[in-house]
């Protein structure tokens, strides 16, 4: 007799359960404790790990910027300038270097950083003269602004 549909009491059984479990466990191999071996605990841990890594991408930007600022502060203090003075005077001298580049220069190019600190210091002194001298002396050389049209 021809059977067109399977009998109702025959169910299909999973044959690749091992690989489905390994797909999850492979992301848990470096965890501590039973969550790197047991599937039930690993599923929860892996999901939390992924969620944390997604959210941490926004925090990473804040963290790295704070790290750069710390390093620039340390380097500029070596040259006798505080961080706010350094950054504000660099901006006023139209040196548009971001904190990442300044931190890398402070580490790998110390002489360049020293000259940048000297530039900021000079601009600071010219700023003080302009504010306190009240127009009798000519305005400073490094206070001149270049206009790009």
């Amino acid at each position, binding site marked *: 007799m021809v059977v067109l549909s399977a009998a109702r009491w025959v169910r299909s059984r999973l044959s690749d359960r091992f690989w489905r479990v390994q797909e999850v466990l492979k992301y848990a191999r470096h965890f501590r404790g039973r969550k790197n071996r047991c599937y039930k605990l690993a599923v929860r841990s892996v999901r939390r790990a992924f969620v944390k890594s997604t959210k941490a991408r926004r925090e990473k930007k804040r963290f790295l910027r704070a790290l750069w600022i710390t390093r620039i502060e340390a380097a500029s203090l070596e040259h006798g300038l505080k961080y706010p003075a350094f950054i504000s005077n660099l901006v006023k001298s139209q040196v548009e270097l971001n904190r990442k580049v300044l931190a890398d220069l402070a580490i*790998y190019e*110390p002489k360049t950083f020293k000259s940048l600190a000297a530039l900021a210091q000079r601009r600071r002194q010219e700023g003080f003269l302009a504010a306190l001298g009240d127009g009798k002396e000519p305005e400073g050389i490094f206070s001149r602004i270049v206009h790009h049209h």
Partner: protein
Amino acid sequence: RYVRQLQRLQLLFSPTAADARGARQFVEEAAQDFARRHPDVVLYVSPHSGPGPAPVLRAEYLNGTVRDELIASKTSEEIVQLATKLANQSGLDIIRIRKPFHTDNPSVQGQWHPLTNKPSILTVQGPRLQPQ
């Protein structure tokens, strides 16, 4: 001048298996055009008779990486697309690149160390004075 990183493509399939139908059609129709369009890639067709492993397209690159792609139950057009994708790749492993830049000489002026900005009396040793 562009050097193609793909050295050879090996098509391993069985002439009788059902899931190798796309591979057989590819060999009959599109393999010659593919080989003509990519003259610097060597295409090997190795049918193994009888029941064997699943049909596979093996790509070997100039840096030694061997990449196997399953072509079971794929149409001839899909295999052509897969082969062109492998031909345009280099053999570097496909993982996340941590930084898009790399230098062997990161420092031109000398990397900072705690004694860079200190007075040189701390580091330099002058000539030893003779007792008179």
